[in-house]
C-alpha cells in the first residue's frame, strides 16, 4: 500500500485529482461529504490505487463498510440481482437444527460447509462427543449407539446417507441423532 501511495505522489496526481470541495479544503471534509452522498466516486480513488472508497484515508474511524461506487463495476443490474439472490443462500449458509435424543438443548450446523457425508458425520461426532458407526445401504448405521436421521421437505424422517449429497443438502430441514435402538426401524434392510 505504501509503495502505491508514494508512486501516486511521484505522478503528482494530487494536482489533478477530482475533489468534491473547493480547492484548499482538506481531505477529511471530502471523506465526510462522500459518506453522506453516496452518488459519486470518491475523488481520492483516482490516485489512491488499490483502495476502495475512502477507506484508506479514514485512519481514525473504525473500518467502514466499503463505499459502493454507483455503476461500478459495470455489471448490469438484472445480472447482479440474479447472482445476489443465489448468493444470499450460500452467504447465510444452510443452517439446520440438530437435536440429539436425551440432550437438553439443540445445536445448529451449516450444511454448506461440508463436502459430503463423511465430513458431516465427523462434525456431528465431534460436536456431540459420540460415535456414529459405519453406514451401509442394507443395514443403516451398524456398530454404534447412535444413528443420524433427518427430516426432509415432506416432513418424513429419513436416514442420513441414503440419497446423493446434493439431494440431501437441498431436502434436509433438520437433523436428529437418534438412539441406535430407535433408529433400527429406519434401516433400509428388511
Amino acid at each position, binding site marked *: 500500500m505504501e509503495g502505491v501511495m508514494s508512486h501516486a505522489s511521484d505522478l503528482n496526481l494530487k494536482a*489533478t485529482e477530482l475533489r468534491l470541495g*473547493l480547492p484548499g479544503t482538506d481531505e477529511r471534509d471530502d471523506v465526510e461529504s462522500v459518506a453522506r*452522498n453516496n452518488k459519486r466516486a470518491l475523488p481520492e*480513488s*483516482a490516485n489512491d490505487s488499490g483502495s476502495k472508497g475512502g477507506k484508506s484515508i479514514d485512519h481514525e474511524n473504525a473500518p467502514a463498510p466499503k463505499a459502493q461506487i*454507483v455503476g461500478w*463495476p459495470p455489471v448490469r443490474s438484472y445480472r447482479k440481482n440474479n447472482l445476489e439472490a*443465489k448468493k444470499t443462500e450460500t452467504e447465510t449458509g444452510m443452517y439446520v437444527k440438530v437435536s440429539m435424543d436425551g440432550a437438553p438443548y439443540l445445536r445448529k450446523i451449516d450444511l454448506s460447509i461440508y463436502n459430503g457425508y463423511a465430513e458431516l458425520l465427523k462434525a456431528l461426532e465431534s460436536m456431540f462427543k459420540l460415535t456414529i458407526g459405519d453406514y451401509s445401504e442394507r443395514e443403516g448405521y451398524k456398530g454404534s449407539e447412535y444413528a443420524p436421521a433427518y427430516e426432509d421437505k415432506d416432513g418424513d424422517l429419513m436416514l442420513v446417507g441414503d440419497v446423493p449429497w446434493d439431494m440431501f443438502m437441498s*431436502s434436509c430441514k433438520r437433523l436428529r441423532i437418534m438412539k441406535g435402538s430407535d433408529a433400527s426401524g429406519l434401516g433400509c434392510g428388511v
Partner: protein
Amino acid sequence: MDPDQSEDSPSNSANSHGPTQPQSPFPDEVLEKVLSFIDSRKDRSSVSLVRKDWYNAERWTRSKLFIGNCYSVSPEIVARRFPRIKSVTLKGKPRFSDFNMLPRDWGANVHSWLVMFAKVYPFLEELRLKRMTVTDESLELLAKSFPRFKALTLSSCDGFSDNGLKAIASHCRNLTELDIQDSVTDDVGGGWLSCFPENFASLEVLNFSSLNCEVSFDDLERLVGRCKSLRVLKVNDSITLDQLRRLLVHAPQLMELGTGSFMQELTPRQYEDIESAFSNCRNLQVLSGLWEATSLYLPVLYGACASLTFLNLSDVALQSSEFAKLLVHCPNLRRLWVIDTVEDKGLEALGSSCPLLEELRVFPSDPYDRHHRDGVTELGFLAVSRGCRKLRYVLYFCRRMTNAAVVTIVQNCPDFTHFRLCIMTPGQPDYLTNEPMDEAFAAVVKTCTKLKRLSVSGLLTDLTFEYIGKYAKNLETLSVAFAGSSDWGMQCVLEGCPKLRKLEIRDCPFGNAALLSGREKYEMMRSLWMSSCNVTMKGCRLLAREMPRLNVEVIKDEGNDDGQADRVYVYRSVAGPRRDAPPFVLTL
C-alpha cells in the same frame, strides 16, 4: 443523415429544382433495381451522397432503417425521407444507463415513433428496440397498427407489463419473433403467453428468459407443439427440468435453447428421459439458462453439445471441475459466457478443450468483493490465450492483472476486435510491479490492428491515451473509467482515432479543455458521455454555443456545486434539442 430533404418522386428527379444535374446514364427504374440489392447501411449512406437522383433512388428503395441514437433524428424527418420502410432498429439510452447511471424517466420513449410509423409505414414487419422505454400503450398501438407485423425484439427495454405483451400475442397474427432480452421491467405477469390464439402457429423465435413471471405450462406446451418452425426457444426459470423435457420432445429441431431451472429432484427414470430428450436435439447451436444447474444434472446436456457454438453460462455459477467436464463435450465452441466461479483452473480447461473459441466473457460472481472470492486472474486469461488463438472478443472482469500478461496475451491472439478488460478495483496498478497498466494497453493497440472496441481499467496515466490515439486507427468505441492524469489524455484520443464513434468516460480528470478540443469530432461521432469528470457548466455552454448541430445535455447531481457538470451527454442531431426532456436534463 443528409439534411437535404428532397421530396421528389423518382420519376421527377431528372427535372428537379435547383442547379440542373447532368442526365443520368440510367433510367431511374434501373437505378432503383440495382440499389434494391444493397443491404449494407454504410453502402447505402455512400450511395445517397453521390448525386441527387441516386439520393432519391436510395431513399425509395431502402426498406431497413437503423437509428443508433433515437434523438439524433426525429420521426418526422425519417418519415419524409424514407417512404417504404419494413424494418426498424432503434436505440435509445446511452449504454451507461445499464449501470444505473441515468435517472428513471430520462426518455427514449418509443411512442412518438410508433405513432408516426402507424401513419407512414402500415406495412411495417420488424421492430428491434434497444434501451428504450416501451409502455403497454405503445405495445397495444404496435399490435393494432401493422397487420403484417412479424418480428419484435426488446433488448434492455423497460416500461411494459403483461398487458402490453397480451396485446402483441392476441393481435399479431403473423408474428414470427418475440424476443425479450435483458428486460429491465419488474414483475411482468405471465398471462400473455396464454393469449396466442389456438390456431396461431407461425412462431420461430420465442425468448422470455429475462422476464420474471410464471406462464401456464400447458399453454406453452401447446404453443410449442403447433409451431413447427420454432428454432429459438428461451424460457425462464419458472420452467422445470421435466417441463423442459416435454417441450424438447415437441421441438427437437431447436437451434437455440434457453433452459429453465435445473433445481429439481429427478427420479432415475426422469433423468434418463431428459438425457435422451437433449440427445435428440441434434441442431443445437446455442444454449443458455441453466439456472441452478449443478454437477448432479449437468451431464444430461452432454448429448446435445456436439454442435454447440455458443454456450451462455452467465446465469449459473459453476465450479471449475463441473465446468471442465462440460467443456469436453463442446469442441466446436466459438462463444462462451461464464461466471468467474470457474476460476483460473476452469479457464485452463477452456484453453485445452475449445481451440475454436472466438469470444469469451467472464462475469464476476462477487462484484462488490463482499465474500473475497478469488475469481479469475491474469493466469486464466493467459491460459485461454495460449489455447484459443482465434480469440477476437473478450470481456474479462478480474481483481488483478499484470502488464506482462496482457502483452503475452495479445501476442498469442493478435486478432482482437473487442478488448474489454475490467480490473474491478478502480485505479489498480500492475499487482506485481506496482506500475500503471499503460504498457498493457499500449501492447493491445499496437498489436491488435483490427481493434474496434476497447475498455480500459486499472491505474492509467495519459500515456495510455497517447498510445490509443497513436495506434488505434480502427477504434470505434472506447470506455474509460478512473483513468488518465490530465486533459492531454483525452485530447490524444480525440485527435488520434479517426473512426471513433462512441466515447464514454467516467471519473477521470478531464476538463473543459479536453471537452472542447473534440468539438468538431463530435459531429462525426454518435455520442460522448462524460460523468464525474472536471467539466463545468461553463465549458458545456461554450461547446453548445460553438456547435449548434450538437445536443449538449447535462444532468446535475443533487447538492453538488453549481458550476460542475456532473453528467454530460453530447450527440449530433438533425432534430435539434429534445422536446421531451425531463426537468433534470438541461439542454444547453
